[in-house]
């Protein structure tokens, strides 16, 4: 049954947003601008320097673009989890529990905002620019890696989103905390991770597996050595990390939902 319902729900959401075309256009443009924010920061920094952490402007732009595209896709599907505190506080989460569908997919399709495609579009444009301006020895495997990287990254970010928002089952106003992890890891992964101090890197690159969104796949594509000393094949493991992250996120979500208590009516 679920296979039929979800496409219908998503299609209904998308249609409803195309009704107000002008409003959609403004929203879309503002999303492209939101994505350009970090791009401008990178360009401003590189007007003063030639390399950041040993990487050139176009190499950093590649990491930024991978991170941006992955985050855009994750935001499209998992961004709705930011509403979780409202569902919990007002008791509407009870409604989701009563339906014969999974709670997590229900939330994910509840509010798909097409304007978020603006973010993805901006990132893809920069990706096209960066890929054509860095030196890559193209092989069929690297083409597959280029396509898989944003997808694996999207799964990793979504998993992070799920885990971070699960905290709202215990701390109802935990959204801001969750945002530090989700939006924080987007900012984090847009840069080479060797610029960060060790404690920050351990938390944001390996516990939250942000390093596998853009940094390690970019190293593999560019054929560069990791300044931090990990072997070259690490860059090819992002899909595995994504699968692992998704599994962990699923388990955390189940555990969290079991601790849900309705607020009464």
């Amino acid at each position, binding site marked *: 049954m679920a296979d039929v319902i979800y496409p219908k729900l998503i299609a209904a959401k998308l249609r409803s947003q195309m009704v107000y075309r002008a409003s959609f256009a403004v929203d879309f443009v503002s999303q492209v*601008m939101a994505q350009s924010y970090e791009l401008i920061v990178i360009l401003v920094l590189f007007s003063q320097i030639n390399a950041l952490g040993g990487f050139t402007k176009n190499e950093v732009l590649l990491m930024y673009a991978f991170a941006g595209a992955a985050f855009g896709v994750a935001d499209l599907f998992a961004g709705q989890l930011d509403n979780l505190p409202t569902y919990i506080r007002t008791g509407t989460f009870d409604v989701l529990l009563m339906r014969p569908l999974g709670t997590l997919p229900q939330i994910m399709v509840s509010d798909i905002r097409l304007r978020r495609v603006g973010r993805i579009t901006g990132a893809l444009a920069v990706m096209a620019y960066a890929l054509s301006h860095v030196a890559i020895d193209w092989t069929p495997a690297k083409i597959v890696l280029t396509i898989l990287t944003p997808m694996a990254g999207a799964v990793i970010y979504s998993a992070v989103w799920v885990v971070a928002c699960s905290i709202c089952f215990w701390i109802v106003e935990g959204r801001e905390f969750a945002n530090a992890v989700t939006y924080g890891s987007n900012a984090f992964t847009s840069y080479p991770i060797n610029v960060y101090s060790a404690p920050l890197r351990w938390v944001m690159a390996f516990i939250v597996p942000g390093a596998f969104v853009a940094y390690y796949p970019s190293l593999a594509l560019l054929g560069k050595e990791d300044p931090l000393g990990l072997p070259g094949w690490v860059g090819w493991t992002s899909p595995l990390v994504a699968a692992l992250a998704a599994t962990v996120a699923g388990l955390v979500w189940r555990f969290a939902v079991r601790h849900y208590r309705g607020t009464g009516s």
Partner: protein
Amino acid sequence: MLAGMTTNVVFGLLRLAIISAAVTAANGEIADYDIAATNTYVWIGQGLLGFVLLWGNNELAERVRSGDVVVDLYRPWHLQGALLAQDVGRGGFAFMTRLAPPMVFGMLLFPFQFPDNPVRWPLFLLSAVIALVISFGVRFLVEISAFWLLDNRGVYGFWNVTSGLLCGLTVPISFFPEWARDTLWMTPFPALLQAPIDVFLGHGSTAKLLLYQLFWAAVVLATGHLALQRAVRKVVVQGG
């Protein structure tokens, strides 16, 4: 509040790491920013963000949309003045809860550039208060645009997205190419964050910075006052 502080610190650490890496790559200094100045810049910025309240809650605009603003308008007060007084009061509390903690955090854990002259402390405070007034003025303009637009979420979103760059929160204004830097200093935006930070660090002429801030405080408040006067003529009270 703890969650807010965590977010603040996380983003502070990220910005600090990236700008410090850039400063290191440029042999230790970019436009008067060495590592200590960068650290000071980042943590004052993270503190001022909450003190001047760069991103408001768009509450007044919501009241315009819903019509509740009529209640605000028929009270025997000057709406803009009353809201400014509220915001200054909020600032007093935010000084303790939002401005001081990140600054102390930066002072304790990282190399910090303390002012060369103790008189900079009160001057910084003065500059921060003017910044708060300008921030209020800009937010007020964004919010009362709802009198004309009814739905000002586009303007509000635009401000939220761009203000961090325009005010010098994410990268110091002096890192920008010259044309961008000169253009930005002709707008009120650097007065919200970069100016108080410059007063603290002793970048540029302090007297000039304060005059620049006072000028824009007067301009945004006067514009807000005139805009409100015009807006009120458009208000139609329906029902009774």
